[in-house]
């Protein structure tokens, strides 16, 4: 061992007086190097992915430029491609799914963490983990055989009759479309929100709850006004995890969205998403421009996810700052 120095072995790599090899013998340096390699592999793969998407779409990027983001045409025969309907469809289905999944998911997490007996909570958590493990094709089949007929026969006519004056609920009721895709996606992302939020709520320190109760709040008040705000950043993290899944989901969406590149204010309208069009058309795409336009769509989805994740990070940082300020007063 390094007997020549008086520093403790775990003093860290700051002490330049010891050679690399002697540090290596202690294993700390090995651990640092190896885990650094693992971490950098992730970054490396991401960079390679972006480079590959960038390089593979060069023809399409030079031909269309920024017009690609705002053109609504998708015509493989005429060689005219535009991403707007797909961007619209991806965003609409993701946000519809979050609008349904967030209240349901957070509500379920609060029940499981705060209000349910231990056994009930653990059993339900088991089922929710099962739901997260189901392959997305199965969700697609669930969508086609159960949700689509339900939408077409009951839910869409009901919404048209009651809320039909809103532009959101106009148009023929096919059963498939943005709304159905949003519902299927919501079912798929609820497990993520519930699992993570439940863990975060459970990790809120007991004394927070007890302090609230000691001050005279009801059970619900302590949960909603003390525990949930304390766990706010974790819950938001779970929502953005769910958003990431909803943006990229392919098979379940393509089976129920109607695969029509249109932009419409109505949620009943059929639409298309970026992942769905790539899955449908990539293998049969002949011709360089067609193929590269599809690859450029992949790049667009990556940029979209990047922007939304960046906003998520920003939001979490801002609320964490505010939360820690609250804690200090």
């Amino acid at each position: 061992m390094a007997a020549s120095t008086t520093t403790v072995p775990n003093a860290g790599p700051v002490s330049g007086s010891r050679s690399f090899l002697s540090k290596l013998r202690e294993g700390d340096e090995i651990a640092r190097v190896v885990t650094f390699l693992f971490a950098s592999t992730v970054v490396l793969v991401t960079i390679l992915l972006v480079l590959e998407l960038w390089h593979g779409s060069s023809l399409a990027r030079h031909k269309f430029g920024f017009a690609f983001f705002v053109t609504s045409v998708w015509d493989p025969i005429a060689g005219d491609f535009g991403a707007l309907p797909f961007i619209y469809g991806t965003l609409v289905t993701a946000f519809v799914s979050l609008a349904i999944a967030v209240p349901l998911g957070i509500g379920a997490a609060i029940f499981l963490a705060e209000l349910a007996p231990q056994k009930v909570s653990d059993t339900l958590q088991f089922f929710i983990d099962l739901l997260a493990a189901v392959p997305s094709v199965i969700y697609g089949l669930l969508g086609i055989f159960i949700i689509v007929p339900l939408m077409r026969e009951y839910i869409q006519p009901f919404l048209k009759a009651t809320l039909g004056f809103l532009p959101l609920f106009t148009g023929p009721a096919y059963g498939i479309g943005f709304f159905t895709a949003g519902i299927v996606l919501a079912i798929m992302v609820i497990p993520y929100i519930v699992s993570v939020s439940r863990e975060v709520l459970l990790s809120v320190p007991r004394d927070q709850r007890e302090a609230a109760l000691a001050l005279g709040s009801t059970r619900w008040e302590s949960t909603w006004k003390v525990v949930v705000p304390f766990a706010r950043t974790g819950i938001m993290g779970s929502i953005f995890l769910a958003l990431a899944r909803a943006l990229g989901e392919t098979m379940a969406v393509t089976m129920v969205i109607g695969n029509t590149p249109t932009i419409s204010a109505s949620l009943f309208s059929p639409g298309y998403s970026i992942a769905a069009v790539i899955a449908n058309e990539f293998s049969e795409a002949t011709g360089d421009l067609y193929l590269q336009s599809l690859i450029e769509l992949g790049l667009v989805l990556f940029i979209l996810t990047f922007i939304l994740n960046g906003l998520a990070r920003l939001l979490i940082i801002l609320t964490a700052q505010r939360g820690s300020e609250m804690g200090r007063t």
Partner: protein
Amino acid sequence: MKRFAGFLFVALAVAGAVWAQGALLINGAGASFPNAIYSKWFDEYHKKFSNVQINYQSVGSGAGIKQVTEGTVDFGASDGPMNDDQIKAYTDKHGSGILHFPTVLGAVVPIYNVAGVSAPLNFTPEALAGIFLGRITKWNDPAIAGANKGVNLPSADIVVVHRSDGSGTTYIWTDYLSKISTDWNAKPGKGSSISWPVGLGGKGSEGVTGLIKQTPNSFGYVELTYAVQNNIGYGTVKNSSGAFVKADFSSVSAAAASAAKSMPDDFRVSITNADGKTAYPICSFTWLLIPEKFSDGGKRDALKGMIKWALTDGQSFAEPLSFAKLPKEVVAKELKAIDKIQ
């Protein structure tokens, strides 16, 4: 010692025999439409010649053309013939040409879900083009009702369904529509993936059929083999001679036979809207794409043998799998063309 020597001798003999067999592995990729018959053929051929193993991946016609041009597979398969640009790309890369060999026939049929209608509906070319262009919007439109006298068609909107994934079926359907409608030919034209004026997209034949079965008053198209194997009722189409023909083995083969008379030497021909009183108008060949020059003599001879077998004995496997056989005239022409493979 003697027993050990004997055992060693047998082991070496077996190893030598296996090594001498020289198992030949040939890779192909392409169209998914004929996958059922190709799998059967390659399996049967392997049973006859156990040293020849042909491996086929049904990745789609577009991918098949790409892979055979890249050289990652030994042969390709496609529902639509390679166009001149694709053939030029192949010749530029390899220095020699690529040959097309039709193997079986496929057809595309109109399917629909109209309440109270169980008998097959008749469709004229004008009706088909009008529906898919979005100009004919109701089921009781005169263009449809005129061909179906006595059938009570509702005044409901037609929900058009098409394929969302690129497919040979769409290629055949749009090839037909381009021939019988100048408006369709101008825009959107023909292709395996197009910009559809109207309609919902279903993924795969299963997607289209699922949508049609579930959605009232819907109308779409699917390949004949799929409709037959899944017991889906389909309509008749009026051919160029004026007769309403239902797609089956004889009407599809009749379309190919009439096209055989004017078959080009490279077999790249579209047989939609073919002449002949009994011909079904929406059919097509599906082709194997075989390079003209092979550097590996063993692979070349094995492939030539396989194509010869597929065109003769192999045709008997077609109808049980719901594919239509090639007419005799086309087979005769192809057998002569096999010699072009060097």
